[in-house]
């Protein structure tokens, strides 16, 4: 198989989905952020964003922490070590593919 095609086929499918890739790129550049920030930057609706985050949490890539700011609930999000490693691997794979 062509090397480039092989590199594409080996990309992590959990990350490769466009919506989740956006989330990964944003989370990859920060220490942590809240749900509202991701919603603002990705322009996704709440349902969509929640389902992507649930998928990422299920894969062990994202840590979700429910907390409060005063009386207002806040959802804090950060990449886990496994998530960062997977994202680094994904970026290397993408570089190899192109």
């Amino acid at each position, binding site marked *: 198989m062509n090397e480039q095609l092989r590199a594409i086929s080996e990309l992590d499918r959990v990350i490769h989905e466009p919506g989740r*890739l*956006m989330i990964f*790129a*944003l*989370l*990859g*550049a*920060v*220490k*942590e*952020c*809240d*749900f*509202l*920030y*991701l*919603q*603002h*930057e990705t322009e996704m609706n*709440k349902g969509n964003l929640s389902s992507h985050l649930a998928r990422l949490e299920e894969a062990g890539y994202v840590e979700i922490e429910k907390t409060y*700011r005063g009386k*207002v*609930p*806040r*959802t804090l999000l*950060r*990449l886990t070590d496994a998530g*960062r490693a997977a994202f680094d691997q994904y*970026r290397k794979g*993408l*570089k190899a593919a*192109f």
Partner: protein
Amino acid sequence: MKNELQDYLGRPKRYDNIDGTGEMLMGLMMLGFTLLGYLNAVLPENSMWRHGLAGMLLMPAVLLPVLGSGYWGAKAIKKHITWPRTGYMALGGGGKSRRTTMAALSALAAGIAGISAFGIACLMRFESQHDWISLAWMGNAAIFVAAYAFWIYRMEKDRPWKWLVLLFMVLGILAIAFIAPGDIVGWRWLMLSFIGLTWLGSGGASLYLYIRHTQPPAPEAE
């Protein structure tokens, strides 16, 4: 696809100045250092602020209130205006490579500033070298303009009007150079204050537009 990914990776850094606090902080720092330099230049030789403990206290006495108000002011704006409207994020997830880059850039900036300051201080010992001192200050102004242009290019992609601010800054510096009496050594404080005030004003305009165009979501948004 790679470019889009790079764009998203750069968004958090741009978001950090979405409310103009970064620029306002730069402006305040510039005004603080300008005030300190001005005081050092105008204080008489026998002033108590030039000797002993008081001399050592001058720098913190001038800079701490200015930098402190900038730091805590920016934090308050983030906490009470930005985070409730468009969300909270903390930079610093870029890993070792980002930290290394930031450290290298900081060292480079400090090196350039140190060498410039040393060069100007050396030249100022010789009053007959005013032309060279003027040239050094012009070089200093050019560095600030170039740094601001680079910053707009990298960090303000969504706000093209910042290029007009840069143009205003350049025209203002030239106007000061041509209109103000005396040479550049005489009006350097005016020039540095103008740059600081321009940054402060530009950051204030960003904050005003941000508040005007964003609303906090309903409480159940999360």
